[in-house]
C-alpha cells in the first residue's frame, strides 16, 4: 500500500515538474520569438519610406523606443541622430524585389543637399563585401558623373565600366545611403527628397 502511494506521489510530482518545464519552454519560445518579431516590425511604424529606401527619424535620438533601440543595436550600432547623419537602408530595388547578387543593378541619381553622402553595399551578414579592389562604396567625391552632374553606379559581380560596386560571390545584399550633416530641408523632408533609384538589370 505504502509503495503504491509513494509511486503515486512521485508521478504527481513528475507531472507537475513536466508542466512547469512546458510552461517555461513555451514562454521562452513565445517571449523571445515575439521579441525579435516586434524588433523587426515595431520600428517600421515610425519609419519613413522614400522609393526603395527606408530610414527612421528617431534613429540615434533619445526618443527612440526600446524596439527601435534594440533594432539599431543589432544592425546600426552607434548610429548618430538625423542632424549629424541620416541613414537610409534598403534590402529591395525600386520595384520592391529583394536585392540579389546574381542580378545586376544600376543606382541612378544626383547629389543630395548635404555636406557629404555615400552609398555602401553590405552582404547578408551586414559586413562589407570582400572584393579585390577594396571598393565598398561610392561617395559625392569619387563618383563619375555626366555633364549634368548625374551618376550611374553599377552593382554587379562582374566588372563594369565607370562606377562599379562589386557584389562578391552571391547571396542577398543590402545598401546604405549615408547623408552626413544634411541641410535642414533634407532632414525635415526625409520621405520626399530626391534619392537615388535602384533599377534591376539582367539576372543570371
Amino acid at each position, binding site marked *: 500500500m505504502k509503495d503504491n502511494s509513494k509511486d503515486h506521489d512521485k508521478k504527481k510530482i513528475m507531472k507537475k515538474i513536466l*508542466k512547469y518545464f512546458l*510552461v*517555461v519552454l*513555451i*514562454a*521562452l519560445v*513565445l*517571449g*523571445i520569438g*515575439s*521579441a*525579435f518579431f*516586434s*524588433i523587426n516590425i515595431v520600428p517600421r511604424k515610425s519609419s519613413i519610406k522614400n522609393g526603395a529606401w527606408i530610414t527612421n527619424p528617431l534613429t*540615434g*535620438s*533619445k526618443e*527612440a523606443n*526600446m*524596439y527601435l*533601440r*534594440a533594432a*539599431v*543595436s*543589432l*544592425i*546600426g*550600432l*552607434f*548610429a*548618430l*541622430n538625423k542632424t*549629424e*547623419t541620416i541613414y537610409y537602408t534598403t534590402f529591395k530595388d525600386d520595384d520592391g524585389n529583394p536585392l540579389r547578387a546574381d542580378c545586376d543593378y544600376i543606382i541612378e541619381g544626383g547629389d543630395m543637399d548635404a*555636406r*557629404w553622402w*555615400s552609398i*555602401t553595399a*553590405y552582404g547578408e551578414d*551586414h*559586413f*562589407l*563585401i*570582400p*572584393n579585390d579592389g*577594396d571598393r*565598398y*562604396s561610392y*561617395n559625392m*567625391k*569619387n563618383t563619375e558623373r555626366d555633364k549634368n552632374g548625374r551618376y550611374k553606379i553599377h552593382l554587379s559581380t562582374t566588372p563594369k565600366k565607370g562606377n562599379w560596386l562589386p557584389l562578391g560571390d552571391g547571396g542577398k545584399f543590402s545598401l*546604405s545611403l*549615408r547623408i*552626413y*550633416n544634411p541641410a535642414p530641408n533634407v532632414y525635415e523632408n526625409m520621405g520626399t527628397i530626391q534619392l537615388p533609384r535602384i533599377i534591376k538589370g539582367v539576372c543570371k
Partner: protein
Amino acid sequence: MKNWVKWILATVILAAVIHLVTVIAIPYGIMLSLKLKSDKANRKVNTLFHAPRVTAESRRVVRPSPDLLYSACGYDVSKEALRFTAPIPDTYWPLSFFASNTDNFFVVNDRDVKSKHIKILLVGSNTSYPDPGDAQVVVSPTNKGVAIFRILIKNEDRLNHLIQIQQQAKCKPQQYKRNTE
C-alpha cells in the same frame, strides 16, 4: 478559475516578461559582447583605440562606413573621470558618446567646435569631478559606455594626414575629487 486556464495565464505572463527582458537586454548584450571582444584583444577600458581603415575584414561592429576613420574608447567613469582631447581636422568630424544601453546622449562635430582642439571632461553622474579647466563637462547617464571619434576621408590622397590626426586624439583618466567630510 479552471486549472488549465491558470497554466495558460502563467505561460502568457511569463512570455510577456521574457519578451520585455529580451528587448531591453539586447542593446546591453551587444555592448557586453563588444567589451568581451575588446578584452580578448587586450584593449583596456578608458583607453582610446584607433581602428585601422575599415575593410571587409573589419568584423567588430555591423555596417561600418568605409569612408570614416574610427577611434573608440570603452569607458567606465565610476572611479575616474576621462579627459578627451583631439585636434579638429578640416573635414567632417563628430565625437559621440553612447550610454550602456547604446543611447547616443552627446555628440559634437567639427563645426560646433570653435577652436582647433576639442577638450571634453566625461564624468559620471553624482560625482565630485576635478576642475575641468577649459574643457566642456559631459555627464554620462551610465558609468559605462563607449566614446567614438569619426573622421571623414574626403580625399584618399590625404588619408595618411588624417591618420596622423586620428592618432593625436586622446582619452586620459583623471582622478575624482575625494570627499573630505
